[in-house]
């Protein structure tokens, strides 16, 4: 794969697609980070920033879809290039969804503003770090075409699920204990749920990378979702 395409413009187009995906992933990662931070710090401005950022990500998605379509139309890619482009088509969907989920989290920051203040559970923070790392690894594995790294992402998802279920139990107990906190706690539960979803999307990304590199489909092999 170190060889370059004879048609250098094609090479450039593929590189463009690759770096745009990396950029989009980077932005989405920042969105998750800021959304949770805004929640933690009750920082509405940060939350609004995340919400605004989403437009950019959405624009990215549309542009990337177009780019993929144009590459497919103009280059008729085959082999690894074809897998790369179709995978890119699917990855942007996941990335865009992750962005949306970050927006949902940021929205909770705004909603929680008007409610009794509560402590953000440690599990949420751990989950956040977990999914951020997963996203990071997924994108790195994509850029390096490194299937082993991608597979390491898959393992990490189990921990996220575990954290979520722990948290769910805890939250239910707390709700029962203090009914005035039900609404904020339901929101926190939603946030946890979304972080867990982000983990799932990262798993998707990693599976796609494995397919791109190895040409073999490992989706739904041993993972039953949610």
């Amino acid at each position, binding site marked *: *794969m170190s*060889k*370059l*395409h*004879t*048609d250098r413009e*094609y090479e450039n187009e593929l590189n463009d697609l690759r770096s745009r995906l990396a950029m989009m992933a980077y932005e989405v990662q920042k969105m998750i980070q800021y959304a949770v931070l805004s929640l933690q710090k009750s920082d509405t401005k940060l939350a609004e920033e995340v919400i605004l950022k989403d437009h950019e990500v959405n624009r990215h998605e549309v542009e990337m879809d177009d780019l993929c379509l144009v590459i497919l139309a103009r280059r*008729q*890619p*085959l*082999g*690894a*290039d*074809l*897998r790369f482009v179709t995978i890119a088509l699917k990855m942007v969907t996941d990335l865009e969804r992750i962005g949306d989920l970050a927006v949902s989290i940021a929205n909770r920051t705004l909603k929680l503003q008007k409610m009794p203040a509560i402590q953000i559970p440690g599990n949420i923070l751990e989950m956040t770090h977990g999914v951020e790392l997963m996203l990071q690894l997924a994108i790195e594995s994509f850029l390096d075409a490194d299937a082993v790294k991608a597979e390491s992402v898959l393992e990490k998802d189990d921990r996220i699920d575990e954290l979520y279920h722990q948290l769910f139990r805890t939250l239910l107990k707390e709700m029962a204990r203090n009914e005035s906190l039900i609404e904020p706690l339901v929101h926190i539960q939603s946030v946890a749920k979304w972080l867990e979803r982000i983990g799932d999307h990262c798993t998707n990304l990693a599976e796609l990378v494995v397919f791109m590199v*190895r*040409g*073999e489909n490992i989706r739904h092999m041993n993972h039953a979702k949610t």
Partner: protein
Amino acid sequence: MIKFEVKKLSAWYRDIKVLDGISMPILEQQVTAIIGPSGCGKSTFIRCLNRMHELSEGARLEGHVLLESQNIYAPKVDPVLLRRRVGMVFQKPNPFPHLSILDNVLSGLRLTRRPKNLEIAESALRKAALWEEVKDRLHKPGVSLSGGQQQRLCIARTLAVDPEVILMDEPCSALDPIATARIEDLIHELRKNYTIVIVTHSMQQAARVSNKTAFFLGGLLVEFSDTSQLFTSPKDTRTEDYITGKFG
């Protein structure tokens, strides 16, 4: 079902080796495509399958080609009779210019002095998806047809001698996309009854028409796999480089 079994086939023109130890099976009622860069030995390879290779000057060959388990290079095999079982279609449509459409279709039988009649011609033309277009002008010269029709006429001519295998050497490279699409559609039809081996410059065409694809490079068989596999996830990096357009 294996139709051809090629075993360690090497071929030379004078002292230049142009095929180097090719071994591969060719399955019955399937389309096998041969792709590779110019001069890699694609044409030479299929010409070895009906013993046309030996007609070239200085041509020599080693190894075995088994057609239904019988070595076609065994001394007792008559190449002329073999070629009736293994037909061939060429790059440039070449209907015989001195013959009418009808006579062109029957030319294989005329040439070999076998009985011929209108039914045979009609059935061959139908199989070649040409009957409707020419039935009203069977006695016009074959060269009065368009390029794509001429190529289908050549296919009909080959079908009329009732071969088991049809070899095609870049059958569409002189045709435009419309004529090409028709021939490709025809190949899908023919696959049901014949074993087809097609050499093509265009990977896209190989991808479209074939079940199996062999990638040749410098006289070597680099990869031979299912077409969808070869074009979506080839095993060899040389194949990968070639199909993705990395020619260095």
